[in-house]
């Protein structure tokens, strides 16, 4: 029970924890305000309890596929928010300015949504097993250990990103946000497969190489959306969403580079 609790909690916590640490560290590096963070935490906790407590009702929506659709919807929303956030991070890197209200709202929403998605599953898990005779100590002990490992990874990752120069942090942050966002689209595809809205299948099984339930597997799941037995539709959506986001980031970066070149030329000319 303890080990099961640890694995489930780590799996749920790590993804949101990495997302928080990457976004917060980039905000620090780019001198952006972080006052929005407390609101996103409050929103995440409230959303987790709300969605978790209404799980039965949500599941019965749309002919019994409500939970899958809500989950997939949240993932797609997070992907779009991350696309916008990377875009704005690059803008702030090349042209530092205070964050506007829309940007702050998107930052708040993305973390609140990520927490809601993961937190609601933790809420349901804890609620379901708390009355079992073998629960109690092992359930809550395992949860604390899972939370502890998730928090530690998040904190160390945050300081690790801060240890780089601004340009390298931005590069690393954008790459990781791209892989995480693509991973979320992969999970959204999985939800749609479960709802029979996308075709199922199995391209390969890499569990023998790296078990999805292992700590390394969980880390890769959170960072790059590692899936040991992906379906063709999942892989396709993963590739398309990843390439789209990478393309947008590179295009925005190139746009600013080309704008800067004439300015630099003018400076040297003067």
């Amino acid at each position, binding site marked *: *029970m303890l*080990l099961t609790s640890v694995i489930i909690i780590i799996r749920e916590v790590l993804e949101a924890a990495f997302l928080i640490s990457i976004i917060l560290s980039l905000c620090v590096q780019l001198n952006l305000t972080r006052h929005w963070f407390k609101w996103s935490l409050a929103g995440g906790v409230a959303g987790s309890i709300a969605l978790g407590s209404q799980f039965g009702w949500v599941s019965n929506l749309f002919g019994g596929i409500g939970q899958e659709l809500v989950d997939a919807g949240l993932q797609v929303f997070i992907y779009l928010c991350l696309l916008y956030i990377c875009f704005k991070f690059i803008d702030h890197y090349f042209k530092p300015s205070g964050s506007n209200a829309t940007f702050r709202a998107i930052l708040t929403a993305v973390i609140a949504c990520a927490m809601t998605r993961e937190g609601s599953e933790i809420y349901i898990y804890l609620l379901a097993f708390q009355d079992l005779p073998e629960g109690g100590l092992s359930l809550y*002990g395992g949860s604390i250990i899972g939370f502890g490992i998730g928090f*530690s990874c998040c904190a*160390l990752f945050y*300081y690790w990103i801060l240890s780089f120069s601004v340009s390298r942090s931005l590069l690393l942050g954008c790459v990781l946000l791209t892989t995480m966002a693509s991973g979320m689209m992969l999970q959204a595809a999985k939800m749609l497969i479960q709802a029979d809205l996308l075709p199922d299948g199995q391209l390969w099984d890499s569990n023998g190489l790296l078990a999805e339930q292992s*700590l390394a597997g969980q880390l890769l799941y959170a960072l790059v959306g590692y899936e040991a037995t992906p379906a063709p539709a999942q892989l396709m959506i993963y590739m398309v969403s990843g390439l789209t986001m990478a393309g947008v980031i590179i295009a925005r970066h190139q746009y600013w580079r080309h704008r800067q070149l004439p300015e630099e030329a003018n400076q040297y000319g003067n």
Partner: protein
Amino acid sequence: MSSLRRFLLVSILSVLMLVNFIAALHGYKSSMAEAENLFDQKLTAMALQLSSVPLRSQSNSPAPDDEHMVFQLFNADGKLVWRSVHAPDQYIAANEGLSENNFNDYRWRTLSYFNFVNGHRIMIAERMDLRYRLAERVILESIVPVVVVLPVAALLIWLIVGHGLKSLALLAGILRRKAADDLSAVNIDNTPIELMPVITSMNSLLRRLDDSFERERRFSADAAHELRTPISAIKMHLHNLHEEYPEHNSSLNSLERDVDRLAHLVEQMLLLHRTTPDHYPAKFESLSLAALAGEIIAANYADFSEKEQTIEVRGDEGRINGDRFALRIMLQNLLNNAYKYTQRGGFIKVIIDTGPDSVRLTVSDNGPGISAEVKSRVFERFYRVGGDRHASGSSGCGLGLSIVEHIAELHRATISMSEGEGGIGLAFKVAFPPSLIFGELP
């Protein structure tokens, strides 16, 4: 702004938590495997005991059990001859040795043992959920302290990091409290070696800065002192020139005015240096500000009279402990300013007012006054209101109020500026602290 203490607390606690929790999980897995092994050994020992029980002493009625562990005993013909009450009638396990099976709505750990001596087969099974729960309960007892101790560890790390950074906080406190003109070296007892380079570099910088200020002070003082003799000689030669060339009096008079101005500048520079609070040899004595003001007015009365200015001293005696020479210069400079910038026929007032918390000396006039922008600059060295183009046409060197500021600082007095009486002109107020009123020497 990032906090060093928070960074150290969070990163150390995170590493501690990560390492401890992963070690605890590893320990949990190993302990569970070891507990499984022990339970299997117990099953084997019980099977051995049961297999050696003689069959003739057994009745066919099922033996009572606790539902956690059941057994079956088969004779050499493979017939079930004895079982516990909750054991099924059929073979529990198909395979020899240890295996896991499902019956009675639970999963069981089963051992099938064949006794080659008497041909008996023993099947003994234990409920897996119960043995797992028992093992986990025992192991969790050793993991719980790892989790519980973390808040204590966080508190200790917070205190230890705070203690480690104490020297840094001490240094920050010393620098915060340091006066702007205090360039003395910073010393901290038991300075950690990590902080030594910072303190050494800072003290070296302060020393160089102090030396540089001292050189600047000495240079202006020495230069002024060295200029006194040639200026006196020029004055003497000018006097002779007046005698020898009376037809050039106009030019010589202009030259004489400029030399007087130069002599005044040199005297003021010397006074500025001498009245620096750091090295002024103050001799505090009981004196009356009103009497001192009276003396200065009497000595300069001819000048005030020549400009038809009215001057009066009002208020009380204003007895304080002060340096007579310095206060005389201060009053002289304030009155001189009022005299220069007040128009012909204007009035100048010296008001002395002894209150419970200070003795206030005010020199006010009904002259043109100064703008708020200029007020912030009048104490700057060599700053002159309006420069040489001031409407009063008076000359000066812009050091008078800097000297006044030095003398006020020497007496720990405060200077302020406001409009004169009726909102006209300018008033300088010098407030002497109560320590000077009640006879304590600073």
